[in-house]
């Protein structure tokens, strides 16, 4: 497995250096042809092996037992989830994760039971890809890896680290390790059976649908589900729909105030910015201990939750109105500091 991870790193480096790219139409996916080929392979493998095995697992193993398997691996993962939370500057979340690990490993019988969740210690989802994202690293190109599926350049780097430090992968003897890795993969695939069926029904072009869903999902995870809504692409068309159904209020005025001078953007941008402004307004109501309460941690008198989460610097891949347009800045002082990093595209 380790050698294999090394190979992955090599491929990554080669891709970066030589630009093993075919020309695609989407700027986020410069290697679309290659990715589609790998995607086709993954689909075929899933159809032949993944899905049948996962379905069999779900049909044969009773629900409670499957839950214990899920909990067991989830508990092991909490260790590094905690470390990643610490690296992302969220010590209280990290503390939650490690408390979860301590409780579930003992009272929860080696993690088979998820006691901590019952007590309100919420499970988090973090990995090194997210940590790098939090530190300001951009997605980079979209990749599809054999067996591992969708990723980006940043998330692939994270994944190499994730695999390298993974206690399950490091476990010895080898036989037990392989059994654990396979069991975990089956358990994960079984959990995704419903989701993959819905994807099957919903998508016109599954590759594109999955890619966009992956990129959106990662973005949301990096922001812990609180990704600024304004940075979503709200098309001009929505304003035009407003002509058919009159909008109750004029947005551009508010938007102009928010974006300020120097941002020469289209109507689409303004619409998005106006949403952001409203969102920011709503933010006042949820400051204070709301965040702490939300996480079931009670209201902390310390700085926890009482100040807005620090804005992450986003790599300036983005330009105005591009799909990666960075969120409108709420804090003008931060904005002044930003040209530190030149646009890389």
């Amino acid at each position, binding site marked *: 497995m380790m050698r294999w991870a090394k190979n992955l790193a090599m491929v990554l480096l080669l891709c970066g250096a030589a630009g093993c790219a075919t020309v695609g*139409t*989407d700027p986020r996916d410069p290697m679309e042809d290659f990715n589609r080929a790998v995607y086709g392979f993954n689909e075929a493998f899933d159809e032949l092996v993944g899905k049948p095995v996962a379905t069999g697992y*779900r*049909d044969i193993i009773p*629900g409670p037992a499957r*839950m214990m398997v*899920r*909990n067991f691996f*989830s508990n092991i993962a909490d260790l590094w989830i905690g470390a990643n939370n610490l690296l992302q500057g969220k010590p209280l979340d990290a503390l939650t994760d490690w408390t979860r690990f301590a409780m579930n490993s003992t009272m929860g019988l080696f993690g088979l039971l*998820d006691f901590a*969740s019952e007590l309100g210690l*919420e*499970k*988090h*989802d973090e990995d090194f890809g997210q940590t790098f994202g939090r530190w300001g690293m951009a997605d980079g190109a979209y990749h599809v890896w054999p067996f591992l599926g969708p990723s980006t350049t940043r998330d692939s780097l994270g994944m190499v680290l994730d695999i390298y430090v993974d206690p399950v992968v490091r476990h010895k003897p080898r036989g037990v390790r392989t059994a654990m890795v396979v069991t975990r993969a089956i358990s994960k695939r079984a*959990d995704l*059976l*419903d*989701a993959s*069926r*819905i994807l099957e*029904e*919903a998508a*016109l*072009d599954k590759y*594109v649908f999955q*890619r*966009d*869903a992956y990129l*959106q*999902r990662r*973005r*949301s*995870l990096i922001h812990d*589900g609180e*990704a600024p*809504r304004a940075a*979503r*692409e*709200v*098309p*001009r*068309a*929505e304003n*035009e*729909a407003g002509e*058919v*159904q009159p909008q*109750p*209020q004029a947005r551009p005025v508010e938007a102009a105030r928010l974006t300020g001078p120097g941002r020469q953007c289209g109507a689409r941008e303004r619409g998005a910015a106006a*949403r952001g402004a*409203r*969102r920011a*307004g*709503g*933010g006042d*109501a*949820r400051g204070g201990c*709301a965040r702490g309460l*939300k996480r079931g941690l009670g209201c902390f008198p310390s700085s926890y939750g009482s100040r807005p989460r620090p804005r992450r610097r986003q790599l300036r891949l983005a330009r105005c109105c591009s799909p990666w347009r960075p969120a409108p800045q709420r804090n003008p002082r931060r904005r002044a500091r930003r040209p530190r990093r030149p646009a890389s595209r």
Partner: protein
Amino acid sequence: MTPPDVLVKTVTLEVVDIIQKDKEIQKGDRKKVIALIETKVLPHFNFLAMTSSAVGRNWDKASAEQKLRVQEEFKTLLVRTYSSAIAAYSTQKFDFRPLRAKPTDTDVTVNVRVMQTGNQPVTIDYDMEKRPTGWKVWDVRVGGISLVANYRTEFDNIVRERGVDGLIKALQAKNSSNETPAAAVVPKK
């Protein structure tokens, strides 16, 4: 006018309750779930906004008739997807988050979380807008994935290659292929 968070809560709980009690739905009667979604959930969606937003910049290019047909086909597709999703989640516990907005806001996001053991909760965010007829949903984000935004690239590609009529055909083909009997709606637990 019912506040948006109350609306989401009552409608979700009502639908989930019906799904859990209905024997035919439990056996996998998809038509019934879809009919349920159409009567209970659909009136609270603004499909014009959703469709125009998903089609994006090509929306101008479509004629009035094409717009209507895209909207109808997209609605069929979304209702089906949504009914699968709600049925898959119906056995889980829902956590309705308090609304984080001022009373004067006309554009809010209602957060719902589906609690799962051993996994991080799945968030469902309803982006809603106040309209004369009540609060209407114009986008649904599941786990941070916006339905509308996710269709945008797909639609864009199809319109670029095959025009708006091509998009209508693709949606029709997708909808009719979904008509073929699928696996049971409610997952085996």
